[in-house]
């Protein structure tokens, strides 16, 4: 995201090309959340897949509404160094332009970021959280953690923006942030029954790859759309995004081949996502060639980082920490090494820029991660106290969240009338309701 000066010029006409690109990008980023839902949904066990999909989709509903009412203004309202003011609540004063595009295009592009960030940490809390507390956490978190950090980093008034920290498309605001929150939630929730002793294999790997494909596709909007226009910067961000992702896939799969003996599809998908995460903050600040190294490193490091949870004993079910926290921090820091003036950023260590930018990057990502972790911990504990516990009962965990929380089963067996389909339809309440 380049500076988001909400320069309002009511009379001026938007640039149609820039607007077309940002609207298309917003749609692409919207698609990432369903993509994520399948990426995660395929990884959980079949008895919990609907719950995983539901957590992601309901976030599209909940944050989608919250954002236009108050989330946007807290993030991008003028305000001070820490948080925006309420000038734009209900999207007041948004009929002008922001740079060359309508403010509303910017609002929507940003809305999709606000939606996917909490959706990212559904991976760490998989398989065990009650639905009510989940909704409460998402709501509070979006306003008290996401909006402020977005303000710090992306608002011209934000203290990290002023510090000169670079985060083109959200390595810190989105990924490191979601990763730190995911860690805090995994700790508060505790381990799933049986973890890590009992097997919890992905129930549908094709879905994981479908999700990865949709994420990759949508991420071009995420990163190249953050140029907020269709020009050279967007083309560069598009290029480094593509290259780093490809390289990271190779890096992850290589680690697997050496360590485990086999290259896996889960590894290829995970590596791609790790690359997308790590290039996010850096995509307009490094050269295409630099992005290959960034990607390879991200793929390899994140592949190893997924083992951390076994070592430290926190049940981060689908590796939000290993991929998003580690990848997000890595990408943010690598700007300090690989950043290149020629590409569009400050020169990093390897390009003769010294330690200056690296220091700023470390400060920004460090502050964001610490705030996110602590604030999430506090939010989770308060919600836990209010709802008398965050977790479903042991029986529900064993039987599956889908039938218990959502009264649904994901898959019906083929032989229509048989076995699972052996149900007796009661007079649908829908009817009674309507006739009443």
């Amino acid at each position: 995201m380049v500076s988001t000066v909400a320069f309002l010029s009511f009379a001026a006409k938007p640039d149609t090309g820039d607007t077309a690109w940002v609207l298309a990008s917003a749609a692409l980023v919207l698609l990432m959340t369903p993509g994520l839902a399948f990426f995660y949904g395929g990884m959980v066990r079949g008895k919990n897949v609907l719950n995983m999909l539901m957590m992601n989709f309901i976030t599209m509903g909940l944050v989608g509404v919250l954002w236009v009412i108050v989330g946007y203004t807290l993030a991008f309202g003028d305000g001070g160094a820490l948080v925006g003011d309420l000038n734009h609540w209900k999207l007041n004063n948004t009929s002008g332009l922001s740079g060359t595009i309508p403010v509303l295009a910017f609002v929507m592009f940003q809305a999709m970021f606000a939606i996917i960030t909490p959706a990212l940490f559904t991976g760490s809390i998989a398989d065990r959280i009650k639905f009510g507390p989940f909704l409460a956490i998402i709501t509070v978190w979006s306003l008290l953690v996401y909006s402020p950090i977005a303000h710090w980093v992306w608002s011209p008034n934000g203290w990290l923006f002023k510090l000169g920290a670079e985060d083109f498309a959200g390595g810190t605001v989105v990924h490191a942030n979601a990763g730190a929150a995911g860690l805090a939630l995994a700790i508060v929730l505790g381990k799933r029954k049986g973890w890590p002793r009992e097997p919890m294999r992905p129930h549908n790997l094709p879905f994981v790859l479908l999700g990865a494909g949709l994420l990759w596709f949508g991420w071009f909007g995420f990163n190249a759309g953050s140029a907020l226009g269709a020009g050279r910067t967007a083309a560069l961000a598009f290029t480094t995004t593509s290259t780093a992702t490809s390289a990271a896939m190779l890096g992850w799969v290589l680690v697997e081949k050496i360590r485990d003996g086999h290259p896996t599809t889960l590894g290829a998908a995970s590596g791609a996502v790790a690359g997308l995460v790590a290039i996010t903050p850096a995509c307009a600040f490094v050269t295409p060639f630099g992005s290959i190294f960034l990607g390879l490193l991200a793929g390899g490091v994140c592949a190893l980082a997924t083992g951390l949870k076994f070592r430290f004993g926190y049940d981060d079910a689908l590796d939000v920490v290993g991929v998003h926290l580690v990848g997000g921090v890595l990408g943010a820091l690598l700007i300090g090494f690989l950043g290149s003036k020629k590409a569009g950023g400050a020169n990093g260590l390897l390009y003769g820029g010294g330690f200056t930018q690296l220091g700023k990057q470390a400060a920004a990502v460090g502050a964001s991660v610490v705030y996110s972790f602590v604030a999430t911990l506090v939010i989770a504990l308060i919600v836990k106290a209010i709802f008398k516990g965050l977790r479903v009962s042991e029986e529900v965990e064993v039987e599956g969240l889908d039938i218990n929380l959502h009264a649904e089963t994901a898959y019906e067996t083929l032989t229509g009338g048989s076995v699972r389909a052996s149900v007796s339809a009661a007079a649908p309440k829908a009817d009674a309701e309507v006739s009443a």
Partner: protein
Amino acid sequence: MKIVVAIIKPHKLDEVKAALEAFGVQGLTVSEASGYGRQRGHTEVYRGAEYTVDLVPKVRVEVLVDDADAADVVEVIVKSAQTGRIGDGKVWTVPVDDVVRVRTGEHGVDAL
């Protein structure tokens, strides 16, 4: 003790279950199966290549019963599963030495 095993058409399961319940059977176990017999299967075509699928979806029902009830249970199943068309299935009875209820360890008829 006997175990009555029935291979029936899938869409007849609900009727069989209801009939057995009405008769007084308290439990049963069901699994998916495929049958081969007089009932012909169907043909599938993929990009011009024809495949004959000769297995037909069936459901397998197992009911543990007291010796005295075995013949009646068989009849209840036959009646409720019958459509009169080829492929309605088979019901057979096998002797059982003993039954135990896992929950309580009860044996024999008490275990049903």
